[in-house]
């Protein structure tokens, strides 16, 4: 059961992503609270991720001006890079380093506006304090529960999230039109459930204020215009690796 637990835990990322857009709930405080709890669970401070993600939406696949921060992490172009990418090791390394760096008042990323910098740093410090308390409690209680019920499942689940995320923009052209630079992947109800309907990704990028439960409606409106689609994640990855 460790793997299903890990997949369920790590796919909370897609809810965190929704919370950043303030769309899964009508009440702003619920979006913020849920976002903070999930961010803590998956080691991704929402205040920082919000700035990162808004820059990604503003400059999706903008390679020319190097404005899309998602392009900083290069997509895999060989079997070796693909394996490393799917392992999640670069993601964990980058996220943990980021939390420490932000908590220590290190340099801010260019996409974090001045007015948000204080909050981003404070949240990272709170996260570090929270993790320190959990570690101290575990040592005091001589317990390994957080390792086996949280951290190890997350590590096992991360490759599945990486595999899912690669399909959103992987091998999409570097253009401004969301119908081209983003992919909608047709998939099973289970994956759409897990990912809070985010496989309707072109729809999400075209109109980011649409909540997860209305994305199928937007899909029905847009489907005849979708140009960048794939029938399932297995097909996407089969095609992706065939070009190495």
């Amino acid at each position: 059961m460790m793997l299903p637990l890990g997949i369920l835990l790590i796919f909370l990322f897609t809810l965190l992503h929704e919370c950043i857009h303030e769309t899964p709930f009508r009440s702003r405080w619920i979006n913020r609270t849920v976002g903070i709890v999930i961010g803590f669970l998956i080691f991704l401070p929402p205040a920082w991720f919000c700035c990162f993600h808004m820059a990604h939406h503003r400059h999706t696949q903008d390679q020319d001006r190097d404005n899309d921060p998602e392009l900083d992490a290069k997509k895999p172009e060989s079997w070796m890079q693909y394996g490393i990418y799917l392992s999640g090791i670069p993601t964990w390394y980058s996220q943990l380093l980021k939390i420490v760096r932000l908590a220590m008042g290190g340099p801010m990323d260019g996409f974090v506006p001045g007015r948000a910098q204080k909050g981003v740093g404070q949240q990272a410090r709170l996260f570090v304090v929270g993790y320190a308390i959990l570690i101290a409690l575990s040592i005091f209680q001589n317990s390994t529960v957080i390792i086996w019920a949280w951290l190890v499942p997350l590590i096992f689940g991360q490759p599945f999230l990486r595999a899912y995320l690669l399909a959103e923009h992987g091998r999409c052209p570097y253009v401004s039109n969301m119908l081209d630079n983003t992919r909608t992947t047709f998939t099973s109800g289970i994956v759409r459930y897990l990912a809070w309907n985010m496989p309707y990704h072109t729809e999400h990028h075209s109109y980011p204020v649409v909540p997860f439960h209305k994305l199928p409606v937007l899909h029905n409106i847009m489907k005849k215009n979708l140009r960048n689609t794939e029938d399932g994640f297995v097909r996407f990855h089969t095609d992706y690796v065939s070009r190495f």
Partner: protein
Amino acid sequence: MVNVPQARHDQSASIDHRDIIRNLSDDQRRDLRQLSNRAGLVRLSSHTGMIALTGTSYGGCHFGH
């Protein structure tokens, strides 16, 4: 087979995502932007419920005696 446009987008030849959004009626817009605590909380409850179930089941196997 992945359906990927190979060349840079020819703005004059094809529709832009903004055209689609611009052409939505007011009713469609209102419907699409409808936020709901209920929908979110129901989905959140089921997601966390599944985490609790798998966690309990896994914990029972791993930590149970």
